[in-house]
């Protein structure tokens, strides 16, 4: 029996904006792929590159890090730090052979449920196109 490939997506969502945005998507009964597993973090700045690496090591196909829009961070500047960190990590992962498309950093506010649903659909579609990560 062949099982259709379904990408595994891990989403690190910040407590103040993106998690609430995902909540809006849910409560408004918007349809989006269930491939995403959501982990709530206090801030996108809390996400250590180690978390992302660990996800990929344990078989994730894609990782989404999402926080408040620049300027809207609950802790004033966490998302700016995250932006620098992941801009560099993305290039580095690509260099090591993990396609840069597999890591995304996006800004989703607490009211952007629609945007969150579209984002997850788009990301899942892109990962589907890339196919499974070559196993070690």
């Amino acid at each position, binding site marked *: 029996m062949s099982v259709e490939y379904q990408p595994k997506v891990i989403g690190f969502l910040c407590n103040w904006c993106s998690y609430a945005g995902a909540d809006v998507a849910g409560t408004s009964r918007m349809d989006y792929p269930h491939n995403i597993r959501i982990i709530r973090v206090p801030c996108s700045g809390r996400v250590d590159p180690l978390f992302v690496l660990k996800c990929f090591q344990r078989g994730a196909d894609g990782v989404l890090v999402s926080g408040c829009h620049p300027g809207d961070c609950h802790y004033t500047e966490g998302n700016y730090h*995250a932006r620098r960190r992941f801009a560099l990590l993305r290039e580095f992962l690509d*260099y090591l052979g993990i396609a840069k498309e597999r890591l995304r950093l996006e800004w989703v506010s607490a009211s952007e449920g629609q945007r969150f649903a579209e984002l997850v659909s788009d990301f899942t579609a892109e990962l589907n196109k890339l196919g499974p990560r070559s196993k*070690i």
Partner: protein
Amino acid sequence: MDTELIQQIRDKARSLLAEGTVEGVIGYERASDGISSRPLFAYDSSATERLIFDETCAHNLVKYLLNKKSRKMAVVVKPCDSRAINLLLNEGQIERDKIFVIGVGCPGMVETNWNYKSETLQAKCRSCQLSKPLVYDFLAGGEFERQAEEETYSDITEAEAESLANRREFWLEQFGRCIRCYACRQVCPGCYCPVCFAERLEPLWVGIRITPEENELWQTIRSFHLAGRCIGCNECERVCPVDIPLSLLNRKLEKDVKELFAFQAGLDPEEQPPFATFKKEEKLEFGE
């Protein structure tokens, strides 16, 4: 061997110890094979007679300052190692007035092993452009004229041009050989966390099994922790017992940090490192 340079180092070390300016001098001495060299900790004037400096003195002695924080020490520092001093000053790990830097002009280092030294310079020395240490209290031997022979990042751009699948295969083969002896960490002047993430048990970030996956996690995060901090002394690669080309990781990050944030570690002890700061309006082609 430059006897005049060595005499200058010995004289300076002796007078520093005699005057009581420092408690000890960290330098190099001839190893017992008569060819290579090893670190020397000189605490009295008789020991200073064993100090040497030549093209085999590859060790970055700045690492030892981290274990001697309570004592005032003098240290023999090559131009590349001097960036490590700036890094540790920047990060508040050492105090400027507690160290005495004996800078040396450096002719470039060769590969050494027990009873062996190569004829050619190490790769990092072939592209080195520092003629003298960036920070010193005393300069022995004066400046050396350096003419960089090759572009610093040519091997990186070559590796980047490979296909994604080839890069993956290459690195998994490299990481597959890692025995996780952590020599790369122990020798690195930038690796001084009291508890390394690799030794945390709760949560267990890096599994105990020595597998390519676990090694990849270790090597990736190790080099990422040094992003914008690696000063390019390349000691990690020198001590690696299985010859993993770690400089390809460290210098890739150095190159990207230069491109993205216009920053290079260890050049200025006052400049803010890239991950300690940010610009609100910067465009990083990510998270727009």
